[in-house]
């Protein structure tokens, strides 16, 4: 998966029409809530086999924080 594909799939998981960038802020966005955090955890486990802790996810501020968890699986 490339960075661009990651951003598109993450936007789908978060159910947002925004074009996400690595610098996009999550903590202040309307779509960053407990349900979407669980969806992101499920997404990381299903797509990358990475089991992030709830703390890792809830402490997320920007998209890049999630990206950092799986960046070794990103191809570009």
């Amino acid at each position, binding site marked *: 998966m490339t960075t661009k594909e990651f951003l598109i799939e993450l936007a789908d998981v978060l159910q947002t029409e925004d074009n996400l960038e690595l610098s996009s802020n999550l903590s202040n966005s309307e779509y960053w809530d407990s*349900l979407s955090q669980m969806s992101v955890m499920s997404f990381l486990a299903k797509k990358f086999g990475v089991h992030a802790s709830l703390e890792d996810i809830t402490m997320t501020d920007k998209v890049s924080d999630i990206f950092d968890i799986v960046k070794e699986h990103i191809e570009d």
Partner: protein
Amino acid sequence: MFEFTKDQIFIITGASSGIGEGVSLLLNELGATVVAIARRMDKLEEIKASSAHPENFFCERKDLSVDCGTLDAYVRSLKAKYGKFRGLVYCAGIPAVISLQAITPEMAEETFNINYFAPLFMAKGFADRRVNTGKGSAMVFISSIAAECCGKGMSLYSGSKAALKASARVIAKEIAPNGVRVNSILPADIETPMTAEEYMQRRKPLYPMGFGSVSDVANFVAFLLSDKAKWISGQSYIMDCAALL
């Protein structure tokens, strides 16, 4: 009464007859735009022709019992075609009266597909923030009194409708932060094409005030979809006029 505007778009399933038809016509009459879904396109076109505002009545042919797991994507495709939805009313359903010993896996699958899995995945699609209009939007599921009062031969039907009622409450809780309300209605005997004449004659003594009508349910659905019901969510309402208590 309450009014809707044409930019308030509602998906109605099972819209070619009975409660679905009644809800579609009423919402359209009240000013809303309706996307009516059913298997029978010819019947949908007839209903559209009889609607108060046919220009705001759109017909979609779809068999909801097939590939239920893709219905969330189907709802998203409807959003791309019509815009964001204000509401979803799931009326499609099939009756199944059969003894336990006669039940086959195929019957069980068919009943649960249309009565439970289809509304579940349509709800998943509707709950997507990109699909609904957020605060003020609502879903209504037509469950059945059979979810509460069981008769012989109703294990599949009662089970599927009880599952729908239970899931509706959970969904309501999950998506409340997004401003989307979810309720279900459990009608008792309503005079629709689904109810056989012989059955209705047998049930008549139970209803001192007569059977319910499609419009009785449709009016309540319209209320639950309106802003008049903005503080009502996660509820399931029996409509039986005290007959089966």
